[in-house]
């Protein structure tokens, strides 16, 4: 079970209708690969974020499948269209069943 998992996202506060914006996300998570051993030589079980999604007003922007080769504290940068004012919802799915979400509103300037 990962501790202190905190999502962070960066989304502009406003955009022009139809504009393409850049979004960055970072979540604190060890991304334990399952390949490592502890000091007694026992394998440390895999525990990763295995999926990340970003939706805007219910429509998919990006849907990512993550493997253990994604670095600790998974970071993503991608672009989204902003057709209208609304809300981005970001969701991270953990191997242990935990789901972490964050949302950000964006206005039309």
């Amino acid at each position, binding site marked *: 079970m990962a501790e*202190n998992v*905190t999502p*962070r996202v*960066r989304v502009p506060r406003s955009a022009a209708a139809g504009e393409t914006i850049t979004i*960055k996300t*970072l979540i*604190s998570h060890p991304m334990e690969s399952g390949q490592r051993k502890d000091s007694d030589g026992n394998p440390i079980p895999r525990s990763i974020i295995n999926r990340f999604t970003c939706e805007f007003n219910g429509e998919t922007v990006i849907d990512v499948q993550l493997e253990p080769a994604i*670095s*600790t*504290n998974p*970071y993503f940068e991608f672009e989204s269209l902003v057709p209208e004012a609304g809300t981005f919802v970001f969701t991270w799915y953990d191997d242990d069943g935990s789901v972490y979400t964050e949302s950000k509103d964006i206005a039309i300037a």
Partner: protein
Amino acid sequence: MKKALLKSAICAAALGGFAHAAAADESASLVINGELEIVTEAPAPAHLDGALRTVYSGWVFRSDETQVMQMDDFDNPGMIFVESGMADWNTAEGTEGKSCADCHGDAEESMREVRAVYPKWNDEAEEVRTLQMQINACRTEQMGAEALKTDAGSMLNMEAYISSVGRGTIVNVAVDGPAQAAWEQGRDLYYTRTGQLDLSCANCHEQNYGNMIRADHLSQGQINGFPTYRLKNAKLNGVQGRFKGCVRDTMAETYSPGSPEFVALELYVASRGNGLSVEGPSVRN
């Protein structure tokens, strides 16, 4: 500067083209979040007595990709830990039920000039204190809280938070007055060879910075960027933990983080960076 650049270019070329590409653009300038200008190169402080002409932040020795990660707080994973430190700053703890903020208010103001002058002499305690020692003195004496472990989790988070609000201020550690004895002890340690490899700090970081040690680009070993987020272990690393790693790698028995020897060494090494900006939490390999 020209000479240092040339030196590293020649060395990199000598070790093969592979090494050359690993060498960073040392003329790059560090501006964080597009506005916070960081001094990564400065005339060496007088007390170095000509041992170095110019001091350089470790940032200039890193690859372009590593450099970029420190140029935006969102891209810098060290800021995750700063956020934890900020939360702790505002959390009441101990028998007095006080938080850091209860006495010190907004850290962005009260702590702005603090990182740059540590380690420093404490008159009452009659000792040189690192910032971590001062944090623990506050905790045990003012808050009635337990001391945090040197160079570990919560302590590094707090140190990173206090450093982060001081980014851009110029390191100015006092080397004379009551701190002088500890400073001289630290200087002696810096120049003492240790271990089976028989290396002192100076052998690598004063005499060979800019050169490649295997595939790694040797820095001056400046600590203005600590605590630092290392790509290697994906977490914050403290100064004295790094000292321990370096000494261990000479195949020597090392002092422990928190020992008087490492406190003296931290004072001395910090003073070698007088003139550079506070940079922590930095990003290094």
